[in-house]
């Protein structure tokens, strides 16, 4: 399966114009803030309508300006991990996960079975009746992940999933995500401004700047673009100052 997207969206003083196709399990979109990376994710999820373009998941076209196709976000089968998790504050952990389970597509297992399986899987057992405000940051992330997978998306979009975390939680979350990716069939797109994260999670990386794609390819290639990042694994090139983020590995 592949995700293909051509997205054009113009604002005053900024235009997003990208075109990419990804077959890989995890695509990283790397760029500074204001480069338009979140806009790409929101367009794919259907939370923002592009001015023109075409977005398809596999054979399924979810947006096509020429053919006037604009599938509702509900029917796109795209999970979205918000930087702030966006857990429903008035619902318990159980309710947050349960509301994402669509009973119609589960004949064999009941909603509560799916919820308890997911709470087990994301180490939330015992927390089912807590409200998000009474959870730690790490627990909130796991609820957010569980809720996304409860809705059975075909693709999962992650918007800077680690940026709000301290380094300890960041490590946990990265492990969590890698584990989720192992047992999940769909594709992932990760938006980040950190080379490190992109390298750890993704197998293909697109870099964007000013709303345009500036490079695409495997992890090595993106690291070239980051400027001297090869030093991480291979040679001894001195890092350029712009690429500091890539060297903040503990």
């Amino acid at each position, binding site marked *: 399966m592949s995700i293909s997207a051509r997205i054009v969206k113009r604002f005053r003083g900024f235009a997003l114009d990208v075109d990419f196709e990804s077959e890989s399990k995890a695509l990283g979109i790397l760029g500074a803030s204001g480069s338009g990376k979140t806009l790409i994710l929101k367009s794919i999820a*259907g939370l923002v309508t592009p001015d023109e373009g075409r977005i398809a998941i596999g054979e399924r076209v979810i947006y096509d300006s020429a053919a006037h196709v604009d599938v509702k976000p509900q029917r796109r089968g*795209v999970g979205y991990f918000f930087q702030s998790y966006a857990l429903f*504050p*008035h619902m318990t952990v159980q309710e947050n996960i349960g509301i994402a389970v669509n009973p119609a597509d589960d004949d064999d297992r009941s909603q509560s079975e799916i919820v308890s399986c997911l709470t087990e899987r994301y180490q939330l057992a015992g927390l089912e009746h807590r409200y998000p405000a009474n959870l730690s940051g790490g627990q909130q992330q796991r609820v957010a992940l569980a809720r996304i997978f409860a809705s059975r998306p075909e693709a999962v979009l992650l918007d800077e999933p680690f940026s709000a975390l301290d380094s300890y939680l960041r490590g946990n979350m990265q492990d969590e995500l890698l584990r989720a990716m192992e047992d999940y069939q769909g594709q992932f797109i990760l938006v980040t401004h950190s080379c490190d994260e992109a390298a750890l999670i993704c197998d293909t990386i697109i870099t964007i700047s000013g709303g345009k794609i500036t490079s695409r390819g495997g992890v090595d290639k993106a690291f070239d673009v980051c400027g001297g990042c090869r030093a991480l694994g291979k040679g001894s090139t001195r890092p350029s100052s712009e690429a500091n983020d890539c060297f903040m590995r503990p």
Partner: protein
Amino acid sequence: MEWAPVIISLKTASVSILITFAIGTWLAYLVCRIRKDSVRSTIDAILTLPLVLPPTVAGFLLLYIFGSYRPLGELLGEIGVRIVFNWQATVIAAVVISFPLMYRSAKAAFVQVDPIFMQAARTIGLSERRIVFRILLPLAAPGLASGGILAFSRGLGEFGATALIAGNIPGVTRTMPLAIYSAVVGGRTEEAYRYVVILILVSFIFVWLLSFLTDRRTTRQRSGERTPRL
């Protein structure tokens, strides 16, 4: 002291809050969904008008609409419904006058719900209808409750529009505010006092309830954190 005004007032306020709550919340939701700024502002202004106009103006307009010799009044008369100077008129007056309080509170409550929750709900596949009932309304609940209580209390105290469209008929349309007026005009100060005390007490209880409920809700959601005090 007659108890009829107390009963009529409570009955009027109770029936009218049901109508005001439903219509106010619904219209606030619809207005929030209007994309075009100019259209939204215009409708918003019209719906807020009864709050700032003297109630007599609203009462005059209601008479103009429901009067027995006006088209709508005649039409209703033909099916045997006479609104003006009937108990129903006290409800209509209370609804019109208290409506903006409900509407504006509901609108403010909807606007302060972070859109990210609605976006999250869409991406996990909730229908728009379920989003309204499971996400938007519960998250706006404190604001809706406060609007409802404000509107109820305002309806309880409605005077001007009620006097114009419902009159001051003892045992039928004489609510507490009108009874106070009649008592004062008739020199029965003692009687006026009693209604005044009852009105203050009932209004206080509801407004107190409002603070109590909204405080408790935030405490539950924010794990022991206290309501910020300035």
